[in-house]
């Protein structure tokens, strides 16, 4: 899938993946890939700044979790993030409905 088509929806994808529970960076990347059946492969280098931005905007909260000798930063969705995700879903449905009506017009009765 074209990268530019995905880039504009990266924030919404990350918020949707975190809706089910907190995840760390690499788990978020693999979750997006699995949900899309491999169609979406996010460049990992773009995900970490996006997560940082969403945390700064108050949609996520980040915390360090120690796994043995390693530390992973886990992100969790906030109430603000849930509201934003709901808005993004509504906007996406309206958008696809409008585009679909033009690309695949219903036959006139």
């Amino acid at each position: 899938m074209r990268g530019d088509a995905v880039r504009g929806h990266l924030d919404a994808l990350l918020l949707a993946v975190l809706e089910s529970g907190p995840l760390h960076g690499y788990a978020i990347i693999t979750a997006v890939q699995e949900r899309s059946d491999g169609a979406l492969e996010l460049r990992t280098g773009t995900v970490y700044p996006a997560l940082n931005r969403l945390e700064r905007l108050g949609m996520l909260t980040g915390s360090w979790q120690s796994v043995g000798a390693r530390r992973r930063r886990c992100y969790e969705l906030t109430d603000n993030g849930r509201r934003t995700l709901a808005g993004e879903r509504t906007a996406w449905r309206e958008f696809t409905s409008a585009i679909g009506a033009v690309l695949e017009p219903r036959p006139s009765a």
Partner: protein
Amino acid sequence: MTIDEHVAALSDVLHGPARTKDRMLTEVREGLTDAADALADAGLPADAAARRAVRDFGSVDDVAPSFQDELTVAQARRTAVTAALGAPVLLLCWQFAGADTGVLSHTARLVGAVAAVAALLCAGCLAATGAWAAPRALPRTVAWAGTIAARPSARRDRAHRRVRARRELDARRTDRRPHAGVAREGRVVRAGLPALRPPRLTNVTGGRRPTRAGDRGAGPTSRPCARVRRRSRRSSRRS
């Protein structure tokens, strides 16, 4: 390139608050290590898995701008917080210097005013880069605003085009000079030449066409060629 080399190369090009930068780079290193471990579990050798993870992450030139944007915002927020904390101290100085009416008090009041303005700007910077800047409905609002703003201008453009077309039509009607290539009254006009009248078409069923003065014996098929042939037949009969 190994994971540590890639993270070091990324660190060399990034500039910003040390704490934020270290946190981001630690997260990147751990993420790359997780990716390499997953690829190694899938069967790749450790070195190849690390190289593949680095390649999937993206080159330093590709990913550095996104990281730098966040570091720049973090630096701006830190500066804004520092300046905002210093403003109340200056305001207190302004209050203490208010009793005296000398040059010192005037200077203190001026500095206090500057501090108040700086505090407002800092508060604005923090609000613009923090949770209040979350683009909830902003893209849709901007899109709708752009659409609504474009509609009057589109209507205005259509009106201008209609007025312009009407003016051109009026100009052509009043202007008697033939214009090259412009069709006028249904006839093609060439510049400097008289208007050419298109040939009249006869009815295929042989209907009568209007006769012109001087036409004799013009019948249903009075074409010039037909007239010449009839004249030659008449002349041959006489002879």
